[in-house]
């Protein structure tokens, strides 16, 4: 490939497209982000809260939208579509057609006067048609770009010129331009990432659901909008027929999924079980507990990290779960319910007919591909898979059949946000591998205005108070807080905003800072964890040092926790603002240093994940040291025969190992472990078990996990009777040649698989995610080898999520019989000896079944390694209650640790199948590359500072410091802080007995000022 281009085309502005664009733009590539609608955000923006963290979806997405919107190296093309793509990987020519917005984005100030005057109302598609918008509209309040657009189909003027024009007359900025024409952009790019997302299934095709026929039957997507603070009823759920607040809501699972008959979707949509539970939990919260919620389901699929615990919590909170399918929803007849109520009739698991009346029913609709994406795929020469999604490679789901064209997100298979975000980063990694030589060739450099000199200026504080839709304003009297702020010392300006993080507010904040001559800023809104960088950036753009800033969290710590006491919450908000004002008044401008980045990565663990991450980075041109505590590469995958699609693992594995060993940029060191870690992002120094020291800018932890050994009541004769095996034990037989395998199975006429051995139990509450697919794939292999063999699966919920549902179907079609069991009625093994007898209860018939297995296979749990915990301490990373390593944010930072420069991949994060490990490893590589691609890393500005006069040279601080940033001065013997190493944790400050160390902007003076301001 000669001189590849340093630009990339990303198609789709949902969370996947945004994440891949940001990763690439921050790693030295220029990105054209093409979005078909008027604003980016995709489906995630429409959601209310997200599982399993219950984060407000728009709130955690919004900073990314804004970042995308103002990123120097992201060219946002809204209302645009790809027309054609010619050329080959490295050198594509893309033609993108941009439809007219009819509003000049350079002029539009998003004041909304146009929409106020526009006489044409149309159904609001952002709210799934619930409620109206105007023909000139803003997609949603936090839209990026925050610019109105005219919908040409419905605009009166555009259909009959001269007939209306109200918006143009009203617009104070003269932004309306009815004469705008479509534009064609010809873009030269090196690669294309498709992130077109999904389309929610339309249940009006299923008459029995009653959707579109029976009032108050809504889809889950509609329900998200009903729950959302920015939705049609501002988060106060109402039913359409009579605006009544529903008190009894039913959710129906698998609508348009796992249905070959009517929906023609044989796959599982993967996300619906969790979103239904989340909706039930959140709806109950919205209604202060006054909600009776019930979820009707087939198999409960809570197979992701933290999902099973969420499910258990929902049960404990009184959400009802009924293992039954409702055949039909009908209007409740008189005598059984009020007008508008719905009646559900179902046979429960015992076969008894039941009737229940609800105020509302929510259909948990599945995901499918939009027809426009199908057209796009054919333009790009990408095939569809059997389920109508974009076809990708089995072991690397971001690669397509066309080199240089990648896919991420739900367009290749239904998947949740963390998995989409992981794929987005993985796609970025693959692009960076392809275009590494063109890094930084086409990017632009950000220039900030020089910082204003504040010498001699008294504090002039501006306070911005956020409504956050109803998130804050429904509890806290925002106006009163704003007025109160004006009375505080040094406050010269105060105002409230609907969404402070929206682009228009951010832009106007810059202007206000300049106009009012502000030199300190307080934002009273949400959490600094998600939003501080956004506001600090705003300060920089206004010429202020970013440390002259403070946040008051009046949402997470106030409105969300004091919903029932609005007056007290308002009082608390005032106090929080007062504290922030008091603190920021004494803030001083701080400066950051920068250190050169060590352009190498340490990868810990030589399994599939470790090798994949190492190879990707090596291909990008970075030096990699891969350490493996054993003597071979391959890890757990060495035991596997096939992936869920039936493709052999061994060739993939040996190819990976071969490449890893032979790559000039990779040093592999066996029988090696980490002994000690110093330094921080960009500048790590790690001591290995052989005493050698590796310097590296980033680290990827991929230490894997291990299978649990059946014991206690889950032993089922394992280790005692040779006929009892684990999945890996059976894999050893299935690895043999057909003749040898048949020989080994010659006495086996009945095989029984026991699922969830050691998973989903009080001692180990999580689901091990892969065992259902693994066991089923083995059952199919047994049936293929020996079709006359009887195969039974004793399961709790079949969790063949996504396209894996096909193997569940295949197993059934081959005669494998699935019998569900409960923890309360655990199958009993009897007569270990001549014959094994297993007694199980079949809930379908309500009878005992006595099996006589010749082979009993236990699908055992995957457990975290004990040494992962020790390793995590070296890098100051956390582990969760189950012992798996904990990512920075379950939803949006799935491969990052909270510690900068350290990333994770594979089984040490959570049980997952091989292709997901590979994707996660690439994603970790992309995130590591964001560090390694840069020449410098900024050092902490908030660092400790020693007052030598007070130091008594006791040396305690040096011992305490986890970053080895404190040493004794050669000259004076007093403590000295190396600002390049200090991370500002404050441990030394607390440890110093003579008050000789202070943390900049967190000194006693500032903290005491803040604390004494509290309790006003």
């Amino acid at each position, binding site marked *: 490939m000669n001189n590849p281009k340093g630009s990339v085309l990303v198609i789709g502005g949902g969370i996947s497209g945004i994440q891949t664009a940001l990763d690439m733009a921050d790693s030295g590539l220029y990105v054209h982000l093409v979005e078909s609608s008027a604003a980016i955000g995709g489906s995630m923006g429409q959601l209310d809260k997200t599982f399993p963290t219950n984060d407000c979806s728009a709130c955690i997405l919004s900073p990314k939208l804004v970042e995308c919107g103002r990123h120097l190296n992201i060219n946002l093309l809204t209302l645009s579509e790809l027309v054609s793509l010619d050329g080959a990987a490295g050198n594509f020519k893309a033609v993108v057609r941009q439809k007219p917005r009819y509003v000049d984005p350079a002029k539009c100030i998003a004041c909304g006067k146009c929409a106020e005057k526009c006489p044409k109302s149309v159904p609001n598609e952002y709210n799934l048609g619930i409620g109206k918008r105007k023909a000139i509209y803003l997609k949603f309040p936090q839209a990026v770009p925050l610019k109105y657009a005219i919908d040409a189909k419905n605009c009166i003027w555009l259909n009959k010129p001269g007939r209306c024009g109200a918006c143009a007359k009203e617009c104070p900025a003269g932004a309306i331009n009815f004469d705008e024409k479509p534009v064609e952009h010809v873009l030269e790019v090196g690669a294309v990432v498709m992130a077109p997302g999904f389309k929610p299934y339309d249940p009006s095709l299923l*008459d*029995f659901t*009653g959707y579109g026929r*029976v009032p108050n039957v809504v889809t889950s997507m509609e329900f998200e909008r009903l729950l959302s603070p920015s939705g049609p009823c501002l988060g106060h759920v109402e039913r359409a027929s009579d605006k009544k607040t529903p008190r009894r809501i039913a959710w129906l699972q698998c609508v348009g999924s796992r249905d070959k008959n009517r929906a023609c979707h044989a796959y599982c949509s993967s996300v619906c079980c969790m979103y239904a539970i989340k909706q039930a939990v959140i709806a109950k919260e919205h209604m202060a507990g006054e909600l009776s919620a019930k979820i009707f389901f087939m198999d409960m699929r809570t197979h992701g990290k933290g999902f099973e615990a969420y499910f258990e919590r929902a049960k404990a909170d009184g959400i009802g779960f009924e293992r039954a399918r409702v055949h*039909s929803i*009908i*209007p409740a*007849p*008189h*005598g059984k319910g009020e007008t508008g109520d719905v009646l559900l009739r179902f046979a429960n698991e015992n076969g008894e007919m039941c009737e229940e009346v609800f105020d509302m029913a929510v259909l948990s609709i599945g995901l499918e591909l939009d027809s426009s994406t199908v057209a796009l795929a054919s333009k790009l020469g990408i095939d569809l898979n059997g389920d109508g999604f974009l076809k990708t490679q089995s072991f690397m789901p971001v690669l397509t059949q066309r080199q240089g064209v990648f896919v991420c997100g739900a367009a290749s298979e239904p998947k949740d946000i963390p998995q989409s975000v992981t794929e987005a980063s993985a796609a970025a990694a693959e692009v960076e591998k392809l275009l590494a030589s063109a890094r930084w060739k086409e990017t632009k450099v950000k220039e900030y205005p020089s910082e204003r000199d504040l010498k001699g200026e008294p504090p002039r504080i501006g306070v911005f108070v956020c409504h956050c839709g109803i998130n804050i304003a429904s509890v806290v009297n925002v106006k009163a807080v704003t007025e109160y702020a004006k009375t505080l010392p040094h406050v010269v300006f105060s105002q409230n905003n609907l969404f402070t993080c929206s682009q228009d507010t951010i832009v106007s904040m810059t202007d206000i800072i300049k106009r009012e001559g502000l030199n300190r800023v307080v934002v009273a809104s949400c959490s600094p964890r998600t939003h501080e960088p956004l506001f600090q950036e705003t300060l920089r753009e206004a010429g202020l040092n970013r440390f002259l800033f403070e946040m008051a969290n009046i949402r997470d710590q106030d409105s969300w926790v004091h919903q029932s006491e609005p007056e007290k919450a308002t009082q608390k908000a005032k106090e929080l603002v007062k504290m922030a004002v008091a603190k920021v008044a004494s803030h001083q401008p701080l400066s950051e240093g920068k250190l050169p980045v060590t352009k190498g990565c340490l990868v810990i663990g030589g399994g599939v994940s470790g090798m994949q991450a190492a190879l990707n980075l090596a291909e990008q041109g970075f030096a990699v040291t891969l350490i493996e505590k054993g003597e071979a590469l391959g890890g757990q995958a060495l035991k596997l025969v096939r992936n869920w699609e039936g493709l052999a693992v061994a060739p993939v594995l040996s190819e990976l190992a071969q490449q890893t060993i032979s790559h000039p940029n990779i040093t592999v060191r066996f029988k090696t472990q980490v002994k000690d870690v110093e330094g921080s992002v960009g500048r790590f120094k790690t001591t290995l078990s052989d005493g050698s020291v590796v310097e590296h800018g980033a680290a990827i932890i991929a230490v894997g996990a291990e299978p649990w050994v059946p014991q206690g009541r889950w032993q089922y004769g394992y280790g005692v009777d040779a006929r009892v095996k684990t999945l890996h034990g059976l894999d050893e037989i299935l690895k043999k040649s057909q003749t040898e395998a048949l020989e080994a199975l010659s006495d086996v006429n009945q095989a029984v698989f026991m699922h969830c051995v050691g998973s989903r139990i009080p001692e180990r509450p999580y689901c091990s995610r892969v065992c259902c697919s693994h066991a089923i794939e083995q059952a199919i292999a047994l049936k293929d080898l020996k079709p006359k063999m009887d195969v039974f699966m004793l399961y709790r919920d079949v969790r063949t999520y996504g396209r894996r549902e096909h193997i569940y179907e295949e197993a059934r079609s081959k005669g494998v019989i699935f019998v569900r069991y409960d923890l309360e009625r655990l199958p009993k093994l009897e007569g270990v000896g001549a014959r094994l007898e297993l007694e199980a209860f079949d809930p379908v018939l309500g009878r005992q079944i006595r099996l006589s297995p010749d082979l009993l296979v236990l699908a055992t749990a995957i457990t975290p390694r004990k040494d992962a915990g020790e390793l995590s301490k070296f890098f100051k990373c956390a582990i969760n209650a189950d012992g798996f390593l904990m990512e920075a944010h379950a939803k949006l930072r799935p491969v990052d640790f909270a510690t900068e420069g350290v990333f994770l991949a594979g089984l040490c994060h959570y049980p997952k199948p091989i292709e997901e490990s590979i994707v996660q490893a690439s994603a970790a590589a992309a995130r590591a590359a964001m560090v390694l691609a840069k020449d410098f890393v900024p050092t902490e500005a908030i660092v400790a500072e020693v007052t030598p006069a007070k130091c008594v040279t006791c040396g305690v601080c040096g011992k305490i410091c986890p970053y080895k940033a404190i040493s004794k001065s050669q000259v004076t013997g007093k403590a000295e802080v190396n600002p390049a190493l200090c991370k500002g944790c404050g441990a030394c400050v607390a440890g110093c007995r003579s008050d000789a160390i202070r943390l900049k902007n967190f000194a006693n003076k500032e903290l005491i000022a803040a604390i004494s301001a509290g309790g006003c």
Partner: protein
Amino acid sequence: MYYVVSEGLRRFNIPHTFEFLSIINLYARWIREGRLVVDSSWNKEGLRFTVQDPCKLVRQGIGDSVADDLRFVVKKVVGEENFVDVWPNKSNNYCCGGGGGALQSGFVKNRRHYGRTKFDQFAATGADVVITPCHNCHSQVLDICKEFGGKWQTTHLWNWIEKALVR
């Protein structure tokens, strides 16, 4: 029974030159074409009507389109405001309980237990008349109405068309 012929022709691959039609579709077509003129003004007392969608004609036969035609004809004949639909309906309707030879099979208790669902469904409409365009349904609906103390009258469709007929 519509399905007996439509499915039989298909399953046994019986050669034929005729086109197989339902009288319900024809009624609707004739009314639309003006060949069959009906006037609902006879229904001064506001007699309320509902319908039974025969499984063999609707769900297993032609589908929702014939159920829609049935409603179209009934509304024309008895007055739109006098029609009240049952739930569930059309292709998703409950069988009356007389189908599949149940009326002839002799398991009367089972048949009536089955028909109770149908009875409740009609009772919930509050209709005065249930139109059953199938003989099986007709007999079963008559029976369950009597058995469970229903207050409606069970009839064929043609009686009402005759009543509304304008020549």
